[in-house]
């Protein structure tokens, strides 16, 4: 996303030869450059994953210590007890991702093609909320969606809440502490991660393609469907990944805006690790979450035919 913030200057000469790293001198230089950072990632990112895998097959107690006993049943127990939270996490994250795409696309399109001299200002306004702690902003949704507040009143008068209650998204005339509130919070929190990649790929589209499409008697809708949207696919794919992955593991929105009926898998991992102190179960849950997300992401990237993106 930062690539959108830093304008790359055009190369001095368009025919500049693509550099092939040819250096003979300092054959060891790249390794010295890589060493500290890669070591950091190996020790504090990769190694912990190994420790977590090992913890998940340990048994024991906090007092007597844990031993690796290859107790794989922990996985089975964790899944059978917490599968509703898993399903809920994926469902909420998927809903939030779709909402982000529907809400974010018009704004990204607006910035890329219609904003004119307002482009920079709107861009700043999209990024600026980042600089207020997201927890404070998430708490603000408690005010916005408060019982009997203007938002809830309007939705009530329009009978929207009747429909959402019937669907099980809200309960009665409350929005707060319902699935709708959690999804609303997730959508809000990850929306910029959708808008920025969308904007990056929309901005690369030559506006003359729109004109050409119009000249060939395509209506605006057809132009969008056949020209603009396919060309923005890289942005759509990376945007959906950047919203779906963090949304699945999130537990902040479910804690602050939800209730005990909206507990997500992140909440379970957090409480198992920090309150219940059942490390094997927590590690198993976290491992399942990681595996599930990696599997889904790999499948999605294959399907959308954008392997070169990664």
């Amino acid at each position, binding site marked *: 996303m*930062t690539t959108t913030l*830093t304008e*790359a200057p055009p190369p*001095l*000469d368009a025919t*500049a030869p693509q550099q092939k*790293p040819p*250096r003979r001198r300092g054959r060891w230089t*790249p*390794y010295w450059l*890589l060493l*500290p*950072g890669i070591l*950091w*990632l190996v020790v*504090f*990112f990769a*190694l*912990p994953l190994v*420790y*977590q895998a090992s913890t998940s097959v340990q048994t024991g107690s906090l007092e007597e210590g844990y031993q690796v006993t290859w107790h794989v049943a922990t996985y089975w127990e964790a899944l059978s007890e917490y599968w509703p939270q898993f399903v809920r996490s994926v469902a909420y994250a998927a809903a939030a991702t779709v909402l982000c795409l529907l*809400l974010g696309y*018009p*704004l990204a399109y*607006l910035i890329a093609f219609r904003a004119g001299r307002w482009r*920079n200002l*709107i861009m700043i306004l999209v990024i*600026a*909320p*980042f*600089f*207020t*702690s*997201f*927890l*404070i*902003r998430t*708490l*603000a949704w408690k*005010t916005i969606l*408060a019982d009997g507040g203007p938002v809830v009143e309007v939705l009530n008068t329009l009978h929207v809440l009747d429909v959402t209650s019937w669907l099980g998204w809200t309960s009665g005339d409350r929005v707060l502490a319902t699935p709708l509130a959690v999804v609303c919070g997730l959508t*809000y929190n990850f*929306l910029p991660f959708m808008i920025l990649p969308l904007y990056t790929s929309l901005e690369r589209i030559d506006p003359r393609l729109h004109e050409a499409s119009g000249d060939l008697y395509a209506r605006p809708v057809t132009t969008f469907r056949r020209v603009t949207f396919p060309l923005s696919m890289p942005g759509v794919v990376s945007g959906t*990944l950047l919203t779906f*992955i*963090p949304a699945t*593991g*999130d*537990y902040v929105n479910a804690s*602050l805006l939800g209730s005990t009926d909206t507990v997500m898998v992140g909440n379970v991992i*957090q409480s198992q*690790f920090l309150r219940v102190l059942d490390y094997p179960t*927590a*590690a198993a849950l*976290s*491992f399942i*979450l*990681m595996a599930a*997300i990696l599997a889904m*992401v790999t499948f999605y990237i294959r399907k959308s035919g954008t392997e070169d993106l990664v």
Partner: protein
Amino acid sequence: MAFVNWLKRNLVVIAGLLTLAYLLLPNVIVTVFSFNQPKGRFNYEWQQFSTEAWKDPCGVAGLCDSLSLSLQIAFWATLGATALGTMIAFALVRYRFRARGAINSLIFLPMAMPEVVMAASLLTLFLNMGARLGFWTVLIAHIMFCLSFVVTAVKARVMSMDPRLEQAAQDLYAGPFQTFLRVTLPIAAPGIAAGALLAFALSFDDFIITNFNAGSTVTFPMFVWGSAQRGTPVQINVIGTAMFIVAVLFVLASMVIGNRRKRRTA
């Protein structure tokens, strides 16, 4: 009919502006409620206008300590991640070496992993090593997850650099060190700055990884999280609003400076 046509033509603009409103509404609420005088412990309902909290932003026990701790951690994490990340980015763009694919995945994976998984696994490492949770474990974690973002930002900039500029410098009898200092580094600087800025924002605002690895150390997001349970002081909104204003001014100033420099060189 004219109105319908106008609506059709500007539908995307209206939808986009509505989304923008959705994005900014919480900031408006945070700002407005920084002038509230709540009745109970929670600042969720509007009562009456007051500037009390603005006069005494540190009036809540622990708030400003947590803020200064977060700033310190963000500063050191930015420094560490930017140094390590810039080195990796240069190596990736400029050199050929073995295991490039594995290294690329190692850098990509932390960005494609839910934070809670990284947080939990890092905690198992610290527990196994018997490390004491606190400032250092948080700093280690922050450098770890900021690193990949810095690499991505710097790599993009270095890749768009013309290698012949460095060759020209060497033709003009600049040594490797001088070339790096006088040519390479200034050209890569915007990418490094963008990476550092991103690292600072990510570290300062991080909650999930900090929540797992901080022990009893309270950073600013941890303070806000705790207050959501115990009662939210108005001062939180004051700090949030002030941060927003500072950030917007900072961005505006850097844009004005950038424009002026562009005009001068043009």
